[in-house]
């Protein structure tokens, strides 16, 4: 963490999450579907961050639960959405004003509309105890500067009686205007027009003086307004979080010593699976500190588990509901998801070299608050060495405080880990039935994919891995004599 970032964390109590991880874990997919109403809410989603402070996280979760549980939540949300949607980002004007610059009349208009909307949101928020916990300063002082008559209309002008001078000038302006309209000839008209030009000059100067006065009065209030922008974004996002809880199959996670997710899903992957006619099998997993290993079938599944874990842990730590039947976890301040297959083009190293560099970096960073997810590490190197490296890595990580999950297809890794999970794969399926289905189908691979169960089950370290690769070769109809040769190798 750079000093700059650390400062940011201290100020906001939030830790930014790398964009790459947001995208890769399927979090972007979830965020894209939340539709915040205000520019400030959109900004919070665009800079997704997790809570650094456990107490703040607990408060956030409580607010989401209470809000979603309010009897009138839907009405409240619909009512708040209208002013939230109309908010404009006025922070550019606020920072100019705070620096002592004078605002334009159009900027004061935007500010006035903003403050009127803010006041409306404060009123509605007042009905809900959960939302009342968000600090939203009363903009009364700002309004008294921008709406001295207190009419609350969404329009702005410098009132005639803003100063006695202005009142006099505008009276003159009106008088000379009627003289222009009533002028007998163009010479007379020109004479009055010249008079008018002078009056307009005086009006402009007086308006400028008043704009300066109003801007100076506002400059001390800009800090509160800028903070209100953040608070309005927070209210916006709380409504989206409560929406998730009410309308999707999600729960607010509890705090625990271990990481527990039951029937967890990843909506992005679920959508892809459903599009191709399948259905997503929810993933259940329990992790203690140290290393857990996921082994199993060749055709995917392991990556799905890791991505679901990354997504839901990030959501949990961002104070969002998670996609699971129930969930509990300790405070996690860092999630890392490393895919062994990703080539490190940038540094010009080979695939394996790049991976070693990333693993070194991850091991360096992994502390008690880390969830480290490794997808097929050393998958691209030769199987004997790869298996040895992974066994070493798992043994090492199992002795550390971080939560690590290693997905691998290498044999004999399980005994090195604290916990073992296996992809159900084709276990329990009737090979004969699959075979006959393949015979009547254009794509055998699709038939197998449909029967493949990507769910996890805990297994003992001694349990032999199922020979699923061999089964797949057979199902997909490798030539009989070729199968014989392969089977002979297995028995040797």
């Amino acid at each position, binding site marked *: 963490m750079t000093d700059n970032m650390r400062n940011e964390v201290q100020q906001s109590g939030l830790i930014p999450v790398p964009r790459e991880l947001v995208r890769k874990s399927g979090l972007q997919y979830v965020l894209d579907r939340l539709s915040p109403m205000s520019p400030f809410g959109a900004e919070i989603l665009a800079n997704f961050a997790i809570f650094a402070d456990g107490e703040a996280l607990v408060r956030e979760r409580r607010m989401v639960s209470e809000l979603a549980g309010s009897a009138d939540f839907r009405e409240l949300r619909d009512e708040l959405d209208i002013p939230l949607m109309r908010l*404009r980002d006025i922070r550019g004007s606020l920072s100019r004003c705070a620096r002592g610059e004078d605002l334009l*009349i*159009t900027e004061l208009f*935007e500010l006035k509309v903003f403050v009127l909307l803010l006041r409306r949101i404060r009123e509605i928020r007042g009905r809900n105890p959960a939302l009342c916990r968000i600090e939203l300063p009363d903009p009364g002082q700002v309004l008294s500067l921008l709406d001295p008559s207190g009419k609350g209309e969404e*329009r*702005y*002008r410098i009132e005639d009686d803003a100063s006695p001078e202005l009142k006099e000038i*505008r009276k003159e302006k*009106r008088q000379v205007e009627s003289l222009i309209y009533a002028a007998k000839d163009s010479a007379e008209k020109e004479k009055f027009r010249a008079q008018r030009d002078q009056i307009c000059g005086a009006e402009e100067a007086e308006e400028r003086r008043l704009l300066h006065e109003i801007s100076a009065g506002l400059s001390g209030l800009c800090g509160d307004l800028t903070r209100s922008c953040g608070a309005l974004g927070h209210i916006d996002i709380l409504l989206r979080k409560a929406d998730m809880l009410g309308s999707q199959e999600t729960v607010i996670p509890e705090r625990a010593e271990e990481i527990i997710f039951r029937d967890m899903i990843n909506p992005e992957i679920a959508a892809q699976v459903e599009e191709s006619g399948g259905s997503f099998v929810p993933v259940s997993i329990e992790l203690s500190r140290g290393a857990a290993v996921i082994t199993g079938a060749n055709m995917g599944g392991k990556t799905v588990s890791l991505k679901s874990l990354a997504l839901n842990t990030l959501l949990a730590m961002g104070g969002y509901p998670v996609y699971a039947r129930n969930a509990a976890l300790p405070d996690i301040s860092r999630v890392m998801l490393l895919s062994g297959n990703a080539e490190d083009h940038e540094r010009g190293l080979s695939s394996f070299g790049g991976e070693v560099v990333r693993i070194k970096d991850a091991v360096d960073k992994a502390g008690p608050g880390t969830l480290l997810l490794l997808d097929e590490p050393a998958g691209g190197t030769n199987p004997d060495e790869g298996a040895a490296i992974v066994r070493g890595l798992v043994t090492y990580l199992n002795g550390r405080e971080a939560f690590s999950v290693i997905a691998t297809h290498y044999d004999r890794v399980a005994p090195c880990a604290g916990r073992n999970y296996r992809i159900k794969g084709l276990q329990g399926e009737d090979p004969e039935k699959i075979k006959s289905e393949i015979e009547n189908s254009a794509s055998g691979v699709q038939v197998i994919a449909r029967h493949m169960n990507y769910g996890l089950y805990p297994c003992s370290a001694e349990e032999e891995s199922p020979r699923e690769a061999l089964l797949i070769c057979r199902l997909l109809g490798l030539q009989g004599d070729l199968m014989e040769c392969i089977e002979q190798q297995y028995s040797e």
Partner: protein
Amino acid sequence: MILEDTSKLKGKVLAVVGLCKNAGKTTVLNAVLDDIYSQEALIFPGITSIGRDGETVDLATGTEKPRIFVREGSIIATAADLLRSCDITAEVLMSTGFTTPLGSVYIIRARSGGWVQLGGPSIVSQMERLEKDMLILGADCVLVDGAAGRRSPGNGTSADYAILASGASLGRNIDEVVRQTAFTAELMQLPVWETNCAESGTPEDWESAEHNAELMLPGAVTDSVLLEAAAGSRPPSAVIADDPSKLLFSYTAYEKFLRTGSKLYVKTRPQLLAVTVNPVSTGGWRFDSDEFLEKTAGKLSVPVIDVVRNIKA
């Protein structure tokens, strides 16, 4: 006087469309405003412009040009940077959220009379939205200072009425200018296609059709599009374009098209109220005012007005 009766503008949009730079669009706009202010039918017009207008000096040609004067109560829509050069007492009514190179466009009520500089959006959909918003905010009608050059995209598309401004700046030959003006006025008065029975398609699609059908031409209609539409042994009885701003073909192509026996329609168009002429050009030459006015009026069925002398043919 350009409009003898302004009451028909109530709740409607009038666009002033220029055939060239310095056709006198702004003078026309001021004259229409005078017509409105001097009659009792409407009191508070709304005024805006496609892109920028209302400067003392024409930014494109450097020539002196008249400014726009509005009376108290009028509503204008202009960009934030231009508002600073207006000398009305301004009341900001609405932020449109539309941005231009000169800042966001705001709808302003003039709390005093004054000179204004107009710069509205140049995107058709935004202009349509803006026209509606000005009416909602209390404008009795909306005047749009259209872009110079009839062929600017979307010029006056959404308006109910139009005034076409032409002038000597269009060319040195008076007969050529008159012919161009008459041609444009003709295209702005094409019959409106009322039934919905026509099929959309390309000329190629049509060739395979058996009957002498109507043909829809969505989008720009250039010389080649127009001539292909009427090609073949059985040209369509009706060729239907979107609106006059999409008609980009030349006079010669149009003459050829007419000889095939086909007829051209548009789906929508503003009603052309008048054509104005400005005998003074930016290039230094000027036409004889009477000759220009008479020749133009001789070719047109709508009123023709000399904007400099403010006389009607």
